[in-house]
């Protein structure tokens, strides 16, 4: 086989494993960014974080937020809720970053699947 084609096929194999590893990593992080609270289910993303941060400057007591299913959920203590959201967000995104860097540095299929 032409070595150029062999190199392309080898890279293709690597790329397919890389894509699946990236997908399952993202899946793991998505799981960490799901937060069940007081009967509601929240997806921790930049929208929720920004909105809660803004609310916390206006109000410190109870507020009502729409969860992922658009159900109104009472948040008794907004500050505690905010702290929990940010804590989970930082933990998940730092892990995402670190694992993603490890993936990017893995230049072979063997190294990719050991990450």
């Amino acid at each position, binding site marked *: 086989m032409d070595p150029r084609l062999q190199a392309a096929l080898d890279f293709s194999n690597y790329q397919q494993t890389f894509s699946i590893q990236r997908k399952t990593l993202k899946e793991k992080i998505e*799981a960490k960014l799901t937060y069940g609270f007081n009967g509601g289910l929240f997806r921790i993303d930049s929208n929720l974080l920004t909105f809660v941060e803004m609310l916390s400057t206006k109000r410190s007591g109870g507020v009502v937020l729409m969860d992922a299913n658009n*159900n109104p959920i009472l948040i008794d203590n907004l500050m505690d809720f905010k702290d929990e959201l940010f804590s989970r967000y930082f933990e998940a995104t730092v892990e995402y970053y670190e694992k993603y860097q490890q993936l990017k540095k893995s230049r072979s299929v063997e190294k990719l699947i050991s990450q």
Partner: protein
Amino acid sequence: MTIGILMYAHNSQFVDYALMSIISGGLAKKHLAVPASLVTDLSTMEWMQESNILQKANSVFEHIIIVDRPVTDNRRTLCDGKTQAVVPFVNSNRASAYDLTPYNRTLLIDSDYLIFSNRLAEYWNVDQDVLIGQSINDIYVGDRLGYNDRYISETGVKLYWATTVMFTKNNTSKIFFDTVNFVKEHYSYYADLFRFDSRQFRNDIAFSVAKHILDGFKSSAVGTLPPVLTTLDTDVLTSVDHDRLTFLIAAPLSEKYIPTSISNTDIHIMNKQSVIRHADQLMEML
């Protein structure tokens, strides 16, 4: 309120569902930190005794509930990588979960669903009486799924995946499970109505039709659990090393396999034989 996991195991001569349920139940119990119970039949219990896994089953499961083995002529094609066989499939009594569960809030899972995270724990207190896996999520990044993995038929409604079901024991969930039973008892009628194949009973279809009816004959994203991350039965689990599972993923339209691995992620492994081949390593994790 008591919470816990419920699973079913009815062995066939081809698949040791009892062994799989011990692995799956043990992992779920460990990672979700709640008790698990098993619904099984006498012949499967006898097999557990004979194969020396009954003691392990007794340590994993809080309750082992014996029921009559469902009478069914259900058969399906089960692949183990590139080989395949048509095997009997005894799994038609999951709608009895409402009556059999010892818990107020139950997570019902298939024995080929391995839980390695606490993701589903976020759903225990969600204010929904019945939740079901919203879809299948193929581990492969390309598109290996067919229309019948997403809808119950070409002209039918959305297919939910009963691999994971969570419910609270109350009137609403009783109506849901009664409806699943009604669909099961009138499977041919609903197959004609929704244009799906009635020759093989599928829990996923009965649960999907029930959800569709109870959602007011429309599709609803409310009442769903996360998409079920899945390796197909053409994929092969090749090694288990601590909490890392390595697979060969069958590339579509090709003889090629793509290696990949996962850790700390819940996974539905359709290739049951490849789970059984690694039973010893998986049992060490419990």
